[in-house]
Every structure is written in structure tokens, then in C-alpha cells.
């Protein structure tokens, strides 16, 4: 089997799994307990937090553990909305955000908040002037993802940062779920206030994640209770999961330059291959993350390509896993200006550093076979 669906989720790293098992077995105490077992886990939790903070070059008290990307995005958006309700109720976001963002702001829209959705061009890019024009006196939140999960387009976080420097009271939330380990993130010196991360996208266990919340910024808690995570996110801490998460982050950022080069080589190879096919359209723009390539075979629905390739042992998906089964949100490709028919052809290959050029060659062979087969039925 060749696994090319790493933006949906990743295989847990063996060493990470070892840590998860060892920690679950031996360190099951509740970090809030007074006894030694509790002290021990509280120490381990702090270690995990410290390690994540130091890998991202931020402070320990700027990291808060969550259950993953969806919780992080919900928290960043609704937490800001509750916190800043009395200052304003206007939110700016892009039209190609993950459903965790889109549906969070939709929920707020139903409650009376106003939302501006910035359109994207055929490269999946927002226009920075649109953002400038959209900012109002009552804008409390700008929410833009760093890397689009369907097409891999890289959004202009630095440019937005520059604009928002003149609006210090607006929260800037970045969904960085697809960005970590794939592009450079400089949280400490940037204007980003909240960045959201999900463990299972970088070989950590599912149900783990964290947010970065800049010192001095406030998010109202969504989960109230026993006051864990400095009172910001209650619920008994998932210590083994967070240890595994910290380890996975260390591993993914180790030699990350080399890893990116490896993924980019695969992507470049496949991209050139696909572009040589008459009936293939590549939707991923040139300026994009190294691990995602989104394309379609004209006239053939994406799911047919996905199933055909699966029969050949190659696992990939139609755009995002979250929306592929349930039509929660229109695909980003549609937002990029393509017709509904074209957007429906979109499929996505997403790499991890574990993929190889050999696998790319196998893909090419398999793809040629189904390409000819599909051509025949057309």
C-alpha cells in the first residue's frame, strides 16, 4: 500500500507510539493530584509543554493543550467572540478555510455576528487589499489559515501580519494545522495571536493538539471546569497523549529542511508527470506547500479516480477528508473560480516525509493504467 493521504491523517510514528504506551502504562496519575504519582505526571506534562514551546521558540505559558485542530479553531474563534463581544462583532476570514473555521463563524453569524469572507483567486490566494478594505472599527478577529488543506496554497500570513500591526486590538488567528513542518512559522516575532495545531497531522496520536496563544492575549474558555491549562481549558489532561505529541513535534521538526526537500521532490516529480497528461488539470498553484498536490482528470469525478487508484494500492482522497463524505462546505477549488463540474474532478495527493520517489514511480505506472482505462470509457 502506498499512503498518499497524509493531509487527512498520518500514521503514528513508531517511537511516538512507544512513548504513548509507556506513558499510559506507568504515568496514569492525575497531574492535579498531590501525591507522587500526580506530581510525576504534572512534571511530565510540564516537560511536554516546555519541549513544544522551545521547538517553536515561544514561551511555555503560551502553549495550551487541546484535543486537536477542530477544538483549537473553535476555541480561537468562539473564545475571541465571547471575550471581545462588547468591543465588536465583526469577523474576517477567507472563503477557503477548514470547516472547523467556516462553521464556527457561521454559528456566530446565526447569533448576530457579521462575517466577511475574503474571496480567493485562481491560485487560491486572497487579495491583501480586500483584507485592508474589510477591516472595520468593530472587527475583533481575522482568521486565515497558513496552508490550505485541499490545494496546499500558502496564504500570506506575513503580509496580513504587517497590516494588522496597525490594528493591535484585532485577534489574528492562524489555522496552522497543515503548515507545521511544511513551511516556516515564526510565531514569536509575528503578529499572530493564536495558532492552531493538530497532532495527528504530524504522526502524533489522534485527539491531541495544542494552540499557541500570545502572551497578553485572552481567549474565553469554551470548556469550563476544574481549571486545568491555567484555567483556560478544563478537563483532566491527556498526559500520555501530550508527551507523545511533544515527541512527534520534535521528530517532525528534526532535519525538517531535509524532510521538506524529500516531499518537494515527490511533488515536483508528480506535478511534472500530471502536467504532461492532456486531460489532467493541476489545481495546486506553483507557490504552495511541499506536501500537497490537487488535480483532476477532466470529465471524471474525483471519487472514481480515488477508488480506481485504491484498487491499485494507492491511497489518496478527494480534497479534504472532512468534507469529502459530507458536503459541509464547497471545495476550495470551487472558490478558486472553477465550475462545479471541474471542481468535482478534484483529487488530492498529500505526502509525508516517509514517502519516497519509488512510490512516486509506482503511482505513475498505476495512474497511466487507470488513465488509459478511463479514457476508453469516456
Amino acid at each position, binding site marked *: 500500500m502506498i499512503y498518499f493521504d497524509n493531509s487527512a491523517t498520518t500514521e503514528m510514528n513508531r517511537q511516538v507510539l512507544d*512513548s504513548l504506551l*509507556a*506513558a499510559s502504562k506507568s504515568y496514569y496519575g492525575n497531574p492535579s493530584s*498531590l501525591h*507522587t504519582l500526580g*506530581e*510525576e505526571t504534572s*512534571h*511530565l506534562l510540564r*516537560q*511536554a509543554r516546555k*519541549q513544544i514551546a522551545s521547538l517553536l521558540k515561544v514561551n511555555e505559558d503560551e502553549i495550551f493543550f487541546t484535543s486537536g485542530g477542530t477544538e483549537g479553531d473553535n476555541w480561537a474563534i468562539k473564545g475571541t467572540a465571547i471575550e471581545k463581544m462588547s468591543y465588536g462583532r465583526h469577523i474576517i476570514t477567507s472563503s477557503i478555510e477548514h470547516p472547523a473555521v467556516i462553521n464556527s463563524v457561521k454559528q456566530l453569524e446565526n447569533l448576530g455576528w457579521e462575517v466577511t469572507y475574503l474571496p480567493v483567486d485562481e491560485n487560491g490566494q486572497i487579495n491583501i487589499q480586500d483584507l485592508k478594505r474589510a477591516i472595520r472599527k468593530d472587527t475583533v478577529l481575522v482568521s486565515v489559515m497558513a496552508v490550505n488543506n485541499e490545494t496546499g496554497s500558502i496564504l500570506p500570513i506575513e503580509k496580513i501580519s504587517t497590516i494588522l500591526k496597525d490594528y493591535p486590538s484585532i485577534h489574528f488567528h492562524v489555522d496552522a494545522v497543515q503548515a507545521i513542518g511544511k513551511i516556516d512559522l515564526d510565531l514569536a516575532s509575528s503578529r499572530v495571536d493564536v495558532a492552531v495545531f493538530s497532532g495527528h497531522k504530524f504522526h502524533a496520536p489522534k485527539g491531541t493538539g495544542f494552540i499557541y496563544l500570545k502572551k497578553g492575549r485572552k481567549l474565553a474558555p469554551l470548556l469550563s471546569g476544574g481549571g486545568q491549562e491555567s484555567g483556560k481549558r478544563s478537563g483532566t489532561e491527556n498526559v500520555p497523549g501530550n*508527551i507523545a505529541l*511533544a*515527541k512527534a513535534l*520534535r521528530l517532525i521538526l528534526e532535519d525538517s529542511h531535509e524532510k521538506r526537500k524529500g516531499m518537494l521532490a515527490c511533488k515536483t516529480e508528480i506535478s511534472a508527470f500530471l502536467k504532461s497528461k492532456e486531460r489532467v488539470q493541476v489545481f495546486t498553484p506553483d507557490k504552495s506547500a511541499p506536501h500537497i498536490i490537487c488535480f483532476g482528470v477532466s470529465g471524471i469525478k474525483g471519487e472514481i479516480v480515488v477508488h480506481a487508484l485504491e484498487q491499485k494500492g494507492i491511497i489518496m482522497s478527494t480534497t479534504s477528508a472532512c468534507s469529502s463524505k459530507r458536503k459541509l462546505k464547497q471545495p476550495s477549488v470551487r472558490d478558486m473560480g472553477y465550475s462545479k463540474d471541474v471542481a468535482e474532478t478534484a483529487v488530492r495527493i498529500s505526502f509525508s516525509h516517509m514517502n519516497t520517489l519509488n512510490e512516486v514511480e509506482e503511482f505513475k505506472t498505476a495512474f497511466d493504467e487507470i488513465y488509459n482505462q478511463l479514457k476508453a470509457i469516456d
Partner: protein
Amino acid sequence: MQITEILVRYGELSTKGKNRKYFIKKLQRNTRSKLKQYQNLKIVANRDRLHITLNGEKADAVMEDLEDIFGIQNFSPVVKVGKSVEEAKKAVVHLVGKHFKENMTFKITTRRADHNFEYDTNELNQILGSEVEESFQPVSVQMKKPDLDVRVEVRLDGIFISVDTLPGAGGLPIGTAGKGMLMLSGGIDSPVAGYLAMRRGVEIEAVHFHSPPYTSPKALQKAKDLTAKLARYTNEIKFIEVPFTEIQEAIKKHVPESYSMTITRRMMLRLTDRIRADRNGLAIMNGESLGQVASQTLDSMMAINQVTSVPVLRPLISMDKNDIISIAEKIDTFELAIQPYEDCCTVFAPSKPKTKPKLKKVLEIEEELDIKTLIDNALAGIKISSISHEDSSEELSNSEFQSLF
């Protein structure tokens, strides 16, 4: 260009007349023990400097450890080149380049141990000086307090050049002042007092009072961890754990609350003094700072200190809390000290301790206590361990847990 040796300059000890040899010997021994993990080092002490030859050991790591040794005023990394003027010129330009700022002043100070070298010191000063002037613009030579002092030494086996001077820890070599007992509670102050005493050459042993189950194992571990932090400046520190439960229970039972603090302190001082006598210590140190809390008024100090005539040194006596905290942060004990574990001072703390206890009253109250038995019982139960810098629970658990991360 590689750093081949480090030149260490002594601090105050250079002024110690006949004791000089003793001080230098101590410093050499302390340096050896601190740097013992670097097996290839050669350490030679002479009258005015210590020469550390690296023999391939990492200069950065060695210099970082040197910063923790008391009695060192400053030190300089030295680069060695072959015995030719051309090589010396190149090295000097390279090293000056690292520090170059426009309009800076510099001087070249040459010493010559090898008097057969083709140029004398004046010629070398001129040759190297004009090389610097030609390579960098604008710079000028200045003899008094230049921005950069380039020291060149021609020896038999090569030319040695150094430009940087890094500050050492100052103070006096540990052990030169003798041994003293540090009363270590687990708070912010006492580790700082210990650090300052060590800086003046005192070899410390830490005395900690422990009252299970009123104090938690964590509080004891914290005191040990603080000791491990202090051990960075020396080799090992003896940690003396004194069981204090029986005494505290007796005080609680027999002593009026307003005097319990005073009497508790007197008992602690008595015990520390007995331990000191047994272990040949010459003084007792604590973290008292005048007026900080009820036990630290002059009235209290007088009433408490009355149990011994041995010097009780209080390095923090005139310091403000903020100054103490900034030293605690510097020596990395602050974060640890503020961890909230009950120690024996807080559990039995009276709500209104006397700030002006009367000695006469104190002596009356103590009649109620069987002091001799209480002291002997406590001394019979002391536990002594050696703590080194690597022993902190943080370090230990880090290595134990490391594979998890």
C-alpha cells in the same frame, strides 16, 4: 583558528601576601575538580595566572564551567600560531576583525619569553599595530584604556594571541575561608545566602529541618534540589537532614503561640550549632534580611542568637527583597524556591508571632521543655548525604523520562 588554551587571572587573592600560595593551590584544586570531565586538560598554576591547555577539549564548554569558579577575576581564550610574523599578523587581523567597530581604539601588548625571536617587543608592537591599522579603517592606537587590548606572547613553542577577556565569578576560592553550616529552608533567601558565603570562600554544608508528616516529601526534595543548584559552584555539598517533628510537636504543646516562632528558631540554631561543632565548622549562615519577617527584627535576632556565641553570618542582612530575587534568578534557584510546598516554617507558623520577644520570657518558657532530650533525639536521627549538581530531581527525572520525549 582554534583556541588552544585559556589564560585565567586571579581575583583578589593576588593581594593576600603570604597566604597567596595557599589560595592559588585551592583555586587550582577547585578548578581541577570542576573541570574533571575534560580529561585532556592540562592545568598549571603559576604566581599570577592559571594556564589551561585544552589539548583538543572544547573551549566553549570549558569556559562555561570556568564562569562558576570563585576566585577567578577573568579569563581569556588564547589562539596559538606558529613562530612567524606573517602567521601572527594574520591571526591578529582575524581576531580584531571579530570586534571591529568604527573609530575604535586598540593597542598591541607584546611579551617575549623567547628572547632569541627575530623581533623584539617594540618591533612586534609596531609591525602588528600597523597591520591592524592598514586592515581596518578607521581605528587608532591608544595606550590607556583602549577598546581592544591585543595581547601577544612569543614563547619557545609558538606565538600566543588573545583579544577577549571574559569576566569570571570573582570572590575567593571555596574552602579558603573554612567551613560553615548553611541553614537551608527551601525559600528564596537561604540559597542566595549560601551562594554569597561560598563566593567569599566558605565551604558550606546545608542543614535542613524536616517535619513529616507536617511537611511533604516534596519540600525535602526541593531543599535537596536547591542544594544541587548551589553545588554547581563547588564539587559536592553535604546535605544534613534533621528530623524536627518531635520538637515542633513539643513546642506546639507547651509554648504560647506568640513565642512559638522564637523558640522554634532557637531550637534550630541550637541543633545547627551542635552539628557545626561535630563537623568542625567555624560559622553558621542563614538567609535573614533585617526586618523581612517577625523572626528577622533585631529584637528577634537577639533573642534567638542568644543560644550560641559562634558567628552567625547573615550575607543578606541589608539587602532588599528585589536584590535577593535577582541573585536567586541569576543562580537559577528562584523558580524552584517559589514552588509551593509547605516547609516546617510555614506549617506551624503562628498567626501573630512576637516581633519583639523578651529574652527573659523566652527563658521562662523554655523551662517547660526538655531541651536536652529533644536535641539529642533530633541529632540521633540526622541523615547526611552528598549532593552534586547532577543530583537534582529535575535532572534525574529528565534522564529517566528522556526516552519518552
